[in-house]
């Protein structure tokens, strides 16, 4: 239960959001008009919803190798988001399958465990939902509910081992400081299978691109689950529970689920039913960041297709480009390897010696053999849209 003071702080935080967003109309990447709004500390982002704040990165913000904190997308489920005081923040660790309870301050978290970093894509499960055909309800994201960042913190595993993990541990449950407004609304609480929680790569991060985590991206500490969709990356982390049973909260049992067996991604066995199962890893995907949609170039002018490719952690082996209606494909040059959880830049020069339209299609291939499909796998949540995308350019 919130104290009166906490409610006041939370409400004040919400008001701060109201007061400083400065929406204005601008041309979005899809060619339509998008509402732009700046949250405190952020540059103007595409405003999908003001409260809870859901803001996506405009295409230009996804062009750099690392996505700047000031344009990194923002996604919340609940309207009450306190500004957490890092000096007073505590992380509670416990649960029926933990051998002892811990209460860690930010200083203790930073000093008692080895500091590690990982470059990883953070992508909302519903990224591109707004591009689904037929349309699916939910936040109507285009391509920008994602970004690539260097996350620094400590291994979740090291913290769990300090608490002691009992042999019967099945799931680890995570809660953050954001809370519902109405008492009946389910709090946003998520769980991970014990093996993913104990994986080397899963972090409790307190830095993003070398800076303290921005408020809107989970200050003072958040979960980082490389390769898995953003829904597991709990922001403003306050509580970790190790338990011998499957967590049965709304956000695990009813939301963020995909048809069982529909995608070749990691299983989450303790949460699976014959009908559906939680979304887990990201699927192989790519994004054309340049040329911009419907760009025009002069005949003979240099033209490069550039973009990013990523997957759930197998790593990208190739990105192919077609300019003849997907009949033949050429391999693009890949950029720096940032590790298997970061995205991979690609680039290919294109022939502009003839006038007319060019349709540039791009598909990425993962080290596990998966490639981007031509057909969408329908699912009610509108997840995993990794269709081959096409940019159209006019040469004149």
């Amino acid at each position, binding site marked *: 239960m919130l104290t009166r003071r906490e409610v006041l702080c939370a409400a*004040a935080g919400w*008001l701060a959001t109201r007061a*400083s967003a400065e929406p204005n109309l601008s041309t979005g990447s899809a060619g339509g008009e998008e509402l732009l709004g700046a949250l405190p500390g952020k540059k103007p982002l595409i405003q999908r919803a*003001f409260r809870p704040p859901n803001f996506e990165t405009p295409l230009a913000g996804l062009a750099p190798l690392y996505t700047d904190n000031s344009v990194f997308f923002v996604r919340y489920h609940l309207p009450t988001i306190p500004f957490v005081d890092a000096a007073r923040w505590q992380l509670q660790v416990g649960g029926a399958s933990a051998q002892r309870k811990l209460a860690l301050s930010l200083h203790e978290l930073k000093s008692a465990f080895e500091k590690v970093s990982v470059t990883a894509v953070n992508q909302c499960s519903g990224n591109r939902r707004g591009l689904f055909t*037929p349309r699916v*309800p939910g936040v109507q994201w285009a391509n920008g509910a994602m970004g690539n960042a260097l996350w620094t913190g400590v291994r979740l595993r090291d913290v769990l081992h300090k608490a002691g993990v009992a042999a019967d541990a099945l799931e680890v449950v995570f809660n953050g400081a954001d809370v519902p407004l109405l*008492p009946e609304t389910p709090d946003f609480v998520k769980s991970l299978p014990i093996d993913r929680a104990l994986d080397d790569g899963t972090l409790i991060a307190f830095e993003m691109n070398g800076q303290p985590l921005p408020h809107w991206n989970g200050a003072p500490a958040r979960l980082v689950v490389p390769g898995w969709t953003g829904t597991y990356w709990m922001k403003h982390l306050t509580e970790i529970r190790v338990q011998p049973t499957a967590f049965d909260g709304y956000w695990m049992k*009813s939301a963020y689920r995909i048809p069982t067996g529909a995608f070749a991604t990691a299983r989450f066995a303790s949460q699976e039913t014959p009908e559906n199962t939680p979304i887990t890893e990201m699927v192989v995907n790519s994004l054309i960041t340049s040329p911009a949609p419907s760009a025009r170039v002069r005949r003979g002018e240099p033209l490069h297709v550039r973009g990013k490719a990523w997957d759930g952690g197998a790593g990208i082996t190739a990105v192919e480009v077609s300019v003849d209606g997907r009949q033949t494909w050429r391999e693009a040059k890949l950029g720096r390897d940032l590790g298997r959880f970061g995205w991979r830049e690609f680039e290919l020069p294109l022939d502009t010696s003839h006038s007319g339209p060019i349709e540039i299609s791009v598909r990425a291939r993962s080290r596990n053999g998966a490639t981007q499909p031509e057909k969408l796998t329908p699912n009610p949540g509108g997840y995993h849209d990794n269709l081959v995308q096409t940019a159209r350019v006019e040469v004149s």
Partner: protein
Amino acid sequence: MRCLLRRALISLSATLLAGAASHVPSTQAAAAEVTELREGTGKDLTIGRCIICHSVEYIPSNAPAMNRAAWQKTIQKMKDRFGAPITDEEAKQILDYLDANYSGKSG
């Protein structure tokens, strides 16, 4: 108790909002939160109930994915799963408003 808490929270928000208006240009605050919905019977009720928990951009942005059955399902979910304080009679009025103005699903 629950209703009292709700009322308390809503009036608290309203009070703080009035306080905040003194040091921010009101046009900015208004432009940020208020998304106009189409005129029609049930508009005020719809806005009034929905904005307790979320701003109303969701309504026009989701219209292409919605028809009467989908709005019915959504309203039911807000009531049953999220605890939205909407009576059955109000739910019907909200459904009629949303269906008349924001059912854009083709087919």
